[in-house]
């Protein structure tokens, strides 16, 4: 939309310079005006947005200033003032059908107001803070505002809170299975909200996509841990039985699925910045490569995993069933997406499909007690190398810098992992990195030359 807007702005200039004739200028203007109907540049309303936020902050400071001299009832009443402001503003925005940043600002103002209201009323009445109920309330209100105002800020608030909430289990809070399911359901709702708009050229929705993808592994991991720990009769036994397994299970599965999701048709039609799942999946696959190639990590994390898995079935069949169900669901999701990516492969994205094989390889390492380090290290390197090569060559073939650089960066990363795990001299390591840098520059120069020749 930004391109159409810019083009529309320049039509008079092109017309006066004689680049296009009057008739074409009129037709083009009409077409562009139609396609830009209802669209506003992102920052056109940013002054209003900043103004509303400043007003809200000013109201809060004003309240703090007169707080001292007020009785308890007065403080409680004053705590409602920001909410009233946000109510009036939100109603105005909704009834006047304002869009874009007005709606975003209305949602933000309401979230801030509720937070201030809860904290201020708790302070006025000496109610001790309860992080659990505060989180639940904020998540509920943020999710409602997400859909009411179609707000990316509210969605981001919800999803970040889901990640914090599901990982606060370690801090002595008594979370239960329902809390984990609650966080997962909220995360899923925001995920769907965000995924609906990833293909659109909206900056805020794209930023939301990155936030959602970054929070995904943390949320799923935290929730899986809560479910498993709560299903054990003696929760503290969790740490005996599962020293490492879940720390990688959820991210690995989720990352692989997201990586594959990137390969379903739209891969080449979307600009790079609108593929958050691709980047998150790539990073998680790189983490798996490190784990499968570092002997100490491999032994610590994977060697005891089969024993733990069998032991938990003996001690707590219910926990064993929950764990099996989670692993099976993740694997089934991966298998379905893998099959779909092969069947729907329109652009020859072999790189993604091959790279996603890191996940079943990691699962195989878990279920073979991780006692064949060399086999898994070799297999993971072969998969990573083939995937990287496919990315690099398809980048050269299609004259695409992004694909080329993804492939080269993967190759460099793989080399770094191998070099770090070998007992070779520092000088050789230095040479290796130097060579990698030259390769990176050389490949890009070659592609520039090819592009130049083709022009």
């Amino acid at each position, binding site marked *: 939309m930004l391109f159409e807007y810019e083009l529309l702005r320049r039509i008079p200039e092109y017309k006066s310079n004689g680049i296009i004739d009057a008739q074409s200028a009129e037709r083009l203007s009409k077409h562009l005006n139609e396609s830009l109907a209802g669209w506003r540049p992102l920052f056109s309303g940013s002054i209003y947005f900043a103004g509303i936020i400043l007003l809200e902050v000013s109201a809060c400071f004003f309240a703090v200033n007169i707080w001292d001299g007020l009785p308890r009832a007065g403080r409680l009443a004053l705590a409602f003032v920001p909410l009233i402001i946000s109510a009036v503003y939100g109603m105005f925005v909704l009834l006047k059908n304002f869009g874009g940043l007005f709606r975003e600002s209305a949602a933000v103002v309401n979230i801030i107001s*509720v937070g201030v209201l809860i904290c201020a009323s708790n302070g006025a009445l000496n109610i001790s803070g309860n992080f659990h109920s505060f989180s639940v309330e904020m998540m509920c209100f943020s999710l409602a505002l997400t859909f009411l105002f179609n707000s990316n800020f509210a969605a981001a608030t919800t999803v970040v809170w889901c990640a914090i909430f599901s990982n606060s289990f370690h801090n002595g809070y*008594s979370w239960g299975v329902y809390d984990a399911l609650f966080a997962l359901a909220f995360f899923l709702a925001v995920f769907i909200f965000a995924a609906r708009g990833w293909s659109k050229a909206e900056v805020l929705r794209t930023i939301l996509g990155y936030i959602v993808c970054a929070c995904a592994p943390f949320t799923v991991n935290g929730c899986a841990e809560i479910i498993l720990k709560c299903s054990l009769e003696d929760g503290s036994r969790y740490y005996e039985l599962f020293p490492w397994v879940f720390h990688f299970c959820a991210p690995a599965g989720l990352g692989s699925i997201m990586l594959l999701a990137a390969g379903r048709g739209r891969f080449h039609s979307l600009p790079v910045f609108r593929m958050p799942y691709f980047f998150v999946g790539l990073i998680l696959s790189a983490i798996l490569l490190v784990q499968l190639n570092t002997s100490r990590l491999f032994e610590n994390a994977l060697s005891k995993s089969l024993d733990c898995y069998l032991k938990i079935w003996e001690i707590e069949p219910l926990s064993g069933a929950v764990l099996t169900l989670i692993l099976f669901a993740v694997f089934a999701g991966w298998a379905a997406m893998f099959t779909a990516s092969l069947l729907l492969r329109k652009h020859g994205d072999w790189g993604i499909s091959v790279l996603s094989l890191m996940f079943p390889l990691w699962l195989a390492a878990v279920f073979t007690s991780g006692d064949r380090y060399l086999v898994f290290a070799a297999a993971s390197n072969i998969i990573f190398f083939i995937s990287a090569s496919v990315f690099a060559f398809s980048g050269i073939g299609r004259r695409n810098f992004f694909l080329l650089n993804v492939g080269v960066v993967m190759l460099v990363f793989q080399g770094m992992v191998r070099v770090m795990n070998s007992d070779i001299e520092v000088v050789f390591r230095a040479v290796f990195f130097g060579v990698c840098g030259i390769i990176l520059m050389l490949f890009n120069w070659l592609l520039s030359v090819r592009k130049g020749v083709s022009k």
Partner: protein
Amino acid sequence: MKNGRLAALLFAFVLAAEAGVVLFRAFEAVDVVENGEEFMFRCENVGNISNWNMRNSKVVPQMAELAVEYGEKIPPVEAEISKAKKKKGFPSNVYVGNCNIKLGVKLGRDAEGFAKAVSYSDNPAGAGRADVKLPVWWCNFVRYDGGKKIPLEHAVLRLGVPRMELTYSRTALERIKKYLKGIDIKKRKGYVVARIKGGRVIPVDFAVNGKSFNEIASGKP
């Protein structure tokens, strides 16, 4: 949501829910303050101001744990104790805080009028009236006397007291700090006055050496 009126209606519901949640909690707290039973809880480590976490306008004293004789067996506590018994150096004090156990505790008053745990149950509904639910941190089998370990006749459960937060205005805090400056750190003894009803605990006052902070805050001589 494209339909502005429908969206506004739904937004009104959200606003009502937001206000409702806060009002419900406020009315509940007021009910506890007005109709709850009053108890005094000891604070430990009443040394300097930072020990009370006195920041901005909040005073958060460190509460002393309550102790109760370990009679009725609690399975997760027993599991931790049986593990500890296998280790060298037992009898010792066993940390059971990892198990996240909360007991329904009936409160009474000791000779000085401070709250003490009279009885407990892990099933508060089935064992008479419980005043408050408290987490179990430790099961003590020994006490220390000058570095010497002395086994206790009966094991004792140490229960955590809920976090107490008291909010004061900045002017009030200045008065409180001025009062505290006049008292030797080592001689400070503090307690929190709280009201309890239906398992909810709301602190209403904090006192050091018998002087109420509410009185100091109000500027009374």
